[in-house]
């Protein structure tokens, strides 16, 4: 508890470095322990959280890859990334393979193919700043972009996206219109 209080205050500290104020929440998700399940409860699928920090790549470009593999089985995802020409694809494939290995070794996953990508996203890492020289003595500040990549693998088959038909959507719309009432009426 004391530890928690200490964290919320900004204590005066001489040794402030970039590494200290980085968020390690994603890595800590792996350490979370669930209480034992009841016998009648449905089996909770195994989860693995993995990430890679400060990848020398743009977060926007990484987003396209992360979006592509969201919801795929791990084998499909690795296959797609292997034959993608982007720089981030190679890095992402390494991360997925590491996560798969971690799942089998530490997280009680029986079959390494029985995993799917539940969450996959990228965000901005710490940028380095450089000077970009323009004409007429002007200069711009160039950002050397870095990104983080996060992935969560869950055991089992990926959940099927519900295919909503046009008729279904129309029906829902009509029902919404029918259920309109006058509020604060007598």
């Amino acid at each position: 508890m004391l530890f928690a209080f200490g964290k919320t205050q900004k204590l005066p500290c001489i040794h402030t470095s970039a590494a200290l104020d980085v968020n390690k929440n994603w890595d800590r998700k792996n350490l979370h322990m669930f209480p034992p399940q009841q016998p009648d409860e449905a089996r909770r699928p195994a989860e693995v959280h993995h990430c890679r920090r400060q990848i020398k790549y743009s977060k926007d470009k990484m987003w396209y890859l992360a979006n592509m593999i969201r919801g795929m089985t791990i084998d499909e995802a690795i296959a797609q990334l292997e034959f993608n020409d982007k720089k981030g694809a190679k890095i992402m494939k390494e991360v997925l393979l590491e996560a798969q290995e971690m799942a089998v070794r530490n997280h009680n996953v029986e079959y390494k193919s029985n995993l799917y990508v539940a969450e996959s996203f990228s965000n901005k890492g710490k940028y380095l700043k450089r000077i970009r020289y323009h004409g007429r003595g002007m200069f711009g500040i160039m950002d050397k972009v870095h990104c983080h990549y996060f992935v969560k693998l869950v055991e089992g088959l990926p959940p099927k996206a519900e295919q909503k038909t046009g008729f279904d959507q129309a029906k829902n719309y009509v029902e919404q219109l029918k259920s309109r009432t006058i509020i604060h009426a007598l």
Partner: protein
Amino acid sequence: MTKHQTTASNSLVSKQLARSQFFFLSMSSCNNQTNQTVSPTVICKSYLNVLECRIIEATGLDRQFAPALAVHGPSILPHPHDEQEVTSEPSFLDNVFWMAAPKKRRTIEINRTRRRDPSFMLKVKTNIEPCVECGHLKQKHILCGFCYEKIRKETALIRGQIKAMEGRPLNTPAQETLVLYDSESPWESDKDKRIVERNRKRPSWFSIY
């Protein structure tokens, strides 16, 4: 004074000058009566013109000053030696006024809809299949990367041996090359070929025929 006013005043002054010149011509032609182009109305007005010209001279409006441009643009004006530059192409600074520039900042919503358009999204490949030989993944129309790599390594070793045999570059004999592995001997038809020996078992993918 704006550009338009100076041009107007210039035109006015030039008109006055033209009229004064015409006056001098008319005065000179009065002596020679052969000149019949001068009309009587001009000669009557010429005395008033003389007065106008004197006034203009006194005020100094006849002298053409350099136009003082009050223009919204770059602070650096063109150099005094304008005559050379008029013939050359208009510089970047002259054209800066009518260059296309964005009127408003593109909002993140507009940017997102453009960047997340299906044309930019990555397409899922449907032509990936496992290689029959090694089991690694390959694309249907491309050789298996793993198999190619293993063949490339063996080829590099064979080439190294050939290099050692030849000694120096551009020393290739005008002969066919035959690669033989352990416990293999050349056939009678292979008499004229140069033989490269490799100290290992023949790989399964390197057929004799």
